[in-house]
């Protein structure tokens, strides 16, 4: 709240102009339908759907892996956890860079595909993968996957094995045991993981900046540009308040429904 001064400073007055702009309207416009600009609304919508899709894919990928580790013999578990922790602790920016190397037009994936095509004597034109929405999705999934594996593993590991035996004794097959015993008991881990993934994806600007280029602009990019390039911190603040409210609404709704997991602090 406040207005941008012509010299780039901030004049402190109470105004909702920035929020009106975010909704795609102009403060002085009399006919809302005529001057509606969907730019900012579509950025918000894109961020929300990307965060949902990333979270969903990450759950589907992390769960089987966490399940595998939790049921592996004690001795090997540490090795598997080691393999999960190394990508988690490797710097965020470096991991984005790895995908830049893979996805570039002359990058590793196109190199392998071209080599395969050559092997079968087929013509091959390199795929344009970098700077697409798909690249951003893959990058997000890669960045946040370990944050889902660990909480799910923690809650799976706590399940008393005698419960599986009890379920089997009562005649449940493997699938039914999973559905009625394992999955409900591991929900705290899934909830904690979702919070650890969904919120950062909503706010991240690095992945979309490096892998999406100018094609994929998210709320994070909008805020970053308003603060550092466009020099309009009041509009950036309005956008970040909207971002904060959105993530809080989703988190509260989600935790109300599934409970708040203690697994949330990944140490």
């Amino acid at each position, binding site marked *: 709240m406040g207005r941008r001064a012509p010299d780039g400073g901030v004049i402190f007055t109470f105004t909702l102009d920035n929020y009106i702009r975010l909704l795609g309207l102009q403060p002085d416009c009399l006919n809302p339908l005529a001057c509606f600009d969907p730019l900012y609304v579509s950025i918000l919508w894109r961020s929300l759907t990307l965060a949902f899709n990333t979270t969903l894919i990450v759950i589907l*990928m*992390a769960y*089987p*892996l966490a*399940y*595998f580790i939790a*049921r*592996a013999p004690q001795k090997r578990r*540490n090795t598997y*956890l*080691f*393999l*999960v*922790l*190394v*990508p988690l*602790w*490797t*710097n*965020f*920016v*470096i*991991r984005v*860079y*790895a*995908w*830049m*190397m*893979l996805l*570039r037009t*002359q990058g*590793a994936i196109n*190199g392998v595909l071209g080599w395969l095509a050559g092997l079968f004597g087929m013509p091959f034109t390199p795929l344009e993968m970098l700077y697409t929405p798909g690249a951003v999705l893959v990058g997000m999934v*890669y960045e946040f*996957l370990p944050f889902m594996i660990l909480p799910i593993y923690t809650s799976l590991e706590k399940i008393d094995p005698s419960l*599986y035996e009890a379920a089997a004794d009562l005649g449940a097959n493997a699938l039914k045991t999973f559905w009625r015993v394992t999955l409900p008991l591991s929900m705290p881990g899934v909830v904690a993981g979702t*919070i*650890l993934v969904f*919120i*950062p994806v909503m*706010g*991240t*600007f*690095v992945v979309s900046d*490096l892998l999406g280029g100018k094609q994929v602009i998210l709320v*994070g990019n909008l*805020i*970053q540009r308003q*603060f*550092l390039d466009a020099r309009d*911190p009041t509009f950036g*603040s309005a956008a*970040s308040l909207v*971002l*904060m409210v959105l*993530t*809080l609404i989703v988190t509260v709704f989600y935790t109300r429904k599934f409970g708040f997991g203690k697994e*949330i*602090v990944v*140490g």
Partner: protein
Amino acid sequence: MNPHRRSPFVLVMTVLVFLFLYVPIFVLVLYSFNASRTNVTFEGFITAFGPLKTQGSLVVQSPCGPFHWFCDLTRNQEVMTAARNTLTIAFVSTIVSTIIGTMAAIALQRHDFKIKPFAQLSLYIPIVIPEIVMGIGILTLFSQVFTWVNTTFNLPPDARLTLGMGTVIVSHIAFSVPFVTLVVQARLQGFDKAYEEAAMDLGANELVTFWRVTLPMLLPGVLSGALLAFTLSLDDFVITFFTTGPGSTTLPIYVYGLLRRIITPQVNALSTVWILIVLIAVFVIQRMENRESI
């Protein structure tokens, strides 16, 4: 039913997900040995040792052989400065946030005060609020306060408050404290007060009891809190990005800046070193944890 029985689906998914996690890292490391200076495609290793010899965009011979880009890295002053900044920031912010966080944890666990529920809840702020919001929040705070101080006291240009090492360290302390507090609190929850009472009964005052009994017993929690703070600081990009100024570039900021302009095998060499350090660190920490649990 054998608890270790695995369905083929789980096994296949596990292999695929591990491949997904490690193929990018493998490619990243492979390219750090690239003979090509443009680093567009992998042109093989540099096999010959000897004085530097290039052929077009290829490096055919180097004093360091295949490790050419690693040697090159050590001569890059910007990288060395960034590494020094990163470590300085991490050490200072870890020490301060560990002290503050431990004190906060003890206060929250042992004492009742008016704003306690609010203070406890505020520990979750860095988890439930996107990092970028915290980053711009801190940036706005600093720039407003600094502008006010600079104009009110009419400071000369060389004495003006600006963004730099100081602001980065303060912001790192700000986001580390809640994590340290939560970790130490978890340790305090299983803490038996009888030891402290025994010390007091034996005539120790509160301060001596704290130094000789409470702190040594809390130490594992304090150390893991410190370790968490240290890694969070080393790894941080977003908050540093907003609070950094000239002269306080950290390694993640430096790499990000490079990636937007050019890509050389040097960046890969830097990444490889980073990954190697992480590998060793995770290995050592796991060993330590195992020994503790036995």
